[in-house]
């Protein structure tokens, strides 16, 4: 069990199996294959975001900005520098990391309300700049004609024009992101950031440089968001300013919490799937689906902020307890 689980876990294999085979069965459940591309990209975004919300307890309400910046950076690079997929994605990551690191300088000394409001302010600033700086971003019309560049490995090159091919590409990126973030959150670093969420002051009194850790998490989270944003621009064949609005920044918060980002690594993934299913299933019945989705979020915050993953964990716990009681009637049920 021990050493392999450091990198790959059973849950991961299940997730990879489900998403790795998605194009094979997605049509038969009444969905279409492009939705898979969007879902997987948003899962990457939500995983990156959850480093802040779920792991460090920092509610960023402006994260859509970094998702958006990643898209513009990806487009700008392929238009103005070189139409190379790897370099364009790398550029998206580097740009969002740099901008994220600068923003993090302002926000890493803050938490709670001040943190939330600062991230709203930064999000709005970037949204504003992106809407008005038409020569760079295309303003309200967006940055159009972004190419789905081929995945060139030197000896062999795959075209990603087709949605299924693109799906497999974003899936592989997703798998890599999952492995890296799983390792990150289950390393000493992950232990420290979760401790900061629980009791920031005590962590400082144990000799940790809390601000540095918060700065680091914020920057990493922005880098992952930028990667997702670059992929999204490729999928949509354009980068648009809407994803940077407060509403979209809010949606990633909603997704992550509903899925159970506070208690599970997989919360962000589950939440993204639920969001897109809600959009495509509820959306066919009512224009107001986002309203219902928001209400569901409010109900969860009130009654079960641990989200879907939390309910699952409770159910597993209850089941185990029942099994223990059933197998040895005299034994006391043990917690956990």
């Amino acid at each position, binding site marked *: 069990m021990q050493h392999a689980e450091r990198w790959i876990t059973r849950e991961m294999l299940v997730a990879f199996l489900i998403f790795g085979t998605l194009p094979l069965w997605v049509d038969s459940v009444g969905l279409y294959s492009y939705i898979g591309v969007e879902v997987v990209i948003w899962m990457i975004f939500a995983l990156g975001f959850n480093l802040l919300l779920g792991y460090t307890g920092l509610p960023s309400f402006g994260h859509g900005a970094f998702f958006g910046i990643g898209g513009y950076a990806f487009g700008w690079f392929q238009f103005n520098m070189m139409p190379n997929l790897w370099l364009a994605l790398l550029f998206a990551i580097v740009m969002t990391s740099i901008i994220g690191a600068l923003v993090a300088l302002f926000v890493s000394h803050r938490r709670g309300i001040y943190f939330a409001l600062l991230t709203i302010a930064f999000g709005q600033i970037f949204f504003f700049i992106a809407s008005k700086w038409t020569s760079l971003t295309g303003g309200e019309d967006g940055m159009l004609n972004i190419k789905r560049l081929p995945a060139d490995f030197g000896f062999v090159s795959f075209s990603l024009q087709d949605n299924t091919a693109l799906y497999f590409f974003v899936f592989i990126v997703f798998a890599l992101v999952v492995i890296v973030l799983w390792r990150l959150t289950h390393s000493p670093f992950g232990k420290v950031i979760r401790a900061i969420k629980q009791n920031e002051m005590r962590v400082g009194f*144990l000799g940790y440089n809390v601000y540095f850790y918060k700065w680091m998490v914020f920057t990493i989270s922005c880098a992952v968001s930028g990667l997702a944003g670059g992929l999204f621009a490729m999928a949509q064949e354009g980068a648009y300013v809407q994803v940077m609005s407060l509403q979209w920044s809010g949606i990633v918060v909603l997704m992550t919490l509903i899925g159970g980002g506070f208690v599970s690594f997989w919360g962000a993934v589950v939440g993204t799937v639920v969001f897109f299913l809600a959009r495509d299933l509820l959306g066919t019945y009512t224009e107001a689906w986002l309203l219902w989705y928001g209400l569901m979020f409010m109900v969860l915050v009130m009654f079960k902020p641990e989200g879907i993953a939390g309910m699952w964990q409770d159910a597993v716990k209850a089941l185990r307890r029942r099994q223990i009681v059933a197998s040895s009637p005299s034994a006391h049920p043990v917690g956990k």
Partner: protein
Amino acid sequence: MALFEAIHVHKRFGDHVVLEEINLSFEEHKLSGIMGPNGAGKTTCFNVITGRYKPDRGQVIFDGQDITGKPPRTIAQLGISRSFQVMNVFDEYTARDNLLLAVPGVRQKGLNIVHDLANDIEFNAKASDVLNRVGLAGKEDVLASDLSYGQRRALEIGIALAAEPRILFLDEPTAGLGAEATAELSAMINRLKQDVTIVIIEHDMSFLFGLADHINVIHWGQVVAQGSPDELKANKWVQSSNLGKLA
């Protein structure tokens, strides 16, 4: 020379003077006590010494080094560790993880994302050792939030101890404990004092008189008496105050 000294430390909040020209010195390998009635400035004194607040005037010296006004993390890195009066454990972590987080070796690996903490024999041995010393053996995998009140108090001290301090500050460790638990705690601290320098804030006089080598009495933000427990029992000020009656 004393391991830790506070020289002419002065602290105000607004126009309220909390500490007035405090002089304290704590000898290495000794257990020192700070006692005084509630609101006398004991906890503020700890907070100034361990970097939570900056003193307005005065100096704090640790092992010959001036640490006045340094941030808590720097002070902690030098080997000064403290527990809190209000419970400050990590509720979502098991007892073991609470302690692991405090181990300086883990802190040095804080940015290492490849390290496998769960299977690190050295660090886990350290955590187990501390759990034994604070009487929590067997509770390794229990979540801190599921521990009893007394166990959480012990864990609170354990976290401070796991930081491998050269000097350990304990803020009212008996707060909220019953007579039996207090006696257990007393025995535990008696064992700890064999290998670490300890400073305890307490208003439970009998507790402190039984443990301390040297006691400072603080009242109205000033040190009003100092000495060994026996000397203090003979001290006129202590006798005339209600503190003396407790002793």
